[in-house]
């Protein structure tokens, strides 16, 4: 399908789904109502709530807080993950000793750690950044590590024979070849960082989309729950498509793959 057609059908599907939702909630045709909007809200109610939330400035602040936490966790996670992945991939003793520790740490369920991070770092931004980091770090770490492990030996040898210094080998071969792996991790990391920040906000926070969600749920304000979820979705789509655009730009040397 052509790009325009794809977009057209995407919008069409979205409109149909929204109309069905609106209909089911009883807000489209008077007298037709399948489910109570107390449980499922409805597109018009969500829009109304979003308008209200934006006009009183509260939702904008929450979006800003959550995005900031996610980005901080993402940035620190990328840097530390790449560094650890390179170290593990290139230094055999570290790989041999450290591997099970990494696997164990990565397996820890993040919601279970969330209260601990609040205990350590308080209810401010830091505990959420740590949680976002804990998801991003392992994703980037494993991708970088795998990237180093799968470097083409023939290429390494061809460059080594030209008397490459170790730093040249890293710059000319290792880094570019793990780059595509790191970028693959980057796209997924963006949504993981968001999830990490929101889980952190569930446990103890004074702002953020997760905080909005948990308080609205407590007060049974379903419209607000849905509008916060919609915002999370929109942010995730925006950020991942930006990541994808960046990836296509940076990795333009690759044969085209359609994923």
């Amino acid at each position, binding site marked *: 399908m052509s790009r325009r057609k794809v977009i057209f059908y995407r919008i069409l599907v979205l409109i149909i789904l929204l109309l069905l939702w609106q209909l089911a909630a009883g807000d489209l045709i008077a007298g037709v109502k399948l489910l109570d909007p107390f449980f499922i809200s409805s597109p018009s109610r969500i829009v109304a709530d979003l308008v209200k939330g934006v006009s009183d400035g509260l939702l904008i602040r929450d979006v800003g807080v959550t995005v900031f936490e996610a980005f901080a966790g993402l940035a620190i996670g990328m840097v530390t993950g790449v560094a650890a992945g390179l170290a593990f991939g290139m230094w055999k003793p570290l790989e041999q000793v450290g591997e099970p520790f990494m696997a164990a740490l990565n397996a820890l369920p993040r919601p279970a750690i969330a209260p601990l991070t609040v205990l350590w770092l308080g209810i401010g931004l830091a505990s959420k950044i740590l949680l976002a980091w804990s998801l991003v770090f392992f994703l980037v770490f494993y991708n970088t590590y795998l990237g180093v492990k799968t470097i083409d030996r*023939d*290429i390494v040898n*061809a460059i080594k024979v030209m008397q490459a210094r170790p730093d040249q080998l890293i710059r000319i071969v290792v880094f570019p070849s793990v780059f595509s792996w790191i970028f693959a991790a980057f796209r997924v990391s963006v949504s993981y960082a968001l999830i990490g920040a929101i889980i952190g906000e569930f446990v103890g926070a004074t702002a953020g989309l997760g905080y909005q969600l948990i308080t609205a749920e407590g007060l049974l304000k379903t419209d607000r729950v849905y509008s916060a979820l919609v915002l999370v979705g929109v942010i995730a789509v925006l950020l991942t498509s930006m990541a994808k655009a960046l990836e296509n730009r940076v990795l333009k*040397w690759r044969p085209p793959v359609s994923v």
Partner: protein
Amino acid sequence: MTVVAERANESAPAALIEAKDFSVTLGAEPNRVVALKGVTLSIMAGEIVVMVGPSGCGKTTFLNSICGLLPENAELSGLLTVASGVRLGYMPQKDALLPWRTVLGNVEVGPEMRGVGKAERRERAEGLIELVGLSKFRNSYPHELSGGMRQRVSLARTLAYGPDVILMDEPFAALDAFNRTALQEELLRINDKTRLTVLLITHDLSEAIVLGDRVAVMTNSPGRVLDIYPVEFPEPRSATHLRGTDEFLHLFQKLWQVLMTESDPTKRAA
């Protein structure tokens, strides 16, 4: 001591690479094998030496020994010397180009690592890309090129590094017959322009005769140089033309006999 060595160098042309009774044992314990047993061969400046032999006779092991690419558990004995200051270029069977660099970027990589300035290495690379006939593709990425074109880039990259000796590990084996001949022709043409020193290994006997100034016939595993045959054809050589001449056919049959006898297990046991 150095004086004596220098005098020796003056009187006889010095070998750039010299192996004397050189042996290599390789592999993890139950499958440990003697890959090379007593190889004696020298490569002089300005000649193309071709090692030809059956698959698995240790030809690649010999090249890897020269490049220092043997695994850690390899056991060496005898003598293998590369004259000091000799720069080695290595052209593997698979092109081993950097897929994230354009043709130009790939050819520049050798001079770049040696710290040659940007403008100079660009000029050098452009020249070599033209030499292998790929000027139109200098900004293409490797995945956009055919196998033959990629191997031309690989050749240009090896030349750009400015090696004193070029080691080629079955460089044209992965190509179709047409491209293989075209690249052999190319190599001979370049060799006419700028005398190269090459150690090329192949299992293709006709390639060995067409390209080699000397052809070293290898025995079956464990590999050893059975005999070295000089190949004298009038210059400039042409890969396509040579194959029809009587001299070529004569040498081909002679070496073929040697190789067949060698790889026949019943005769080898005796």
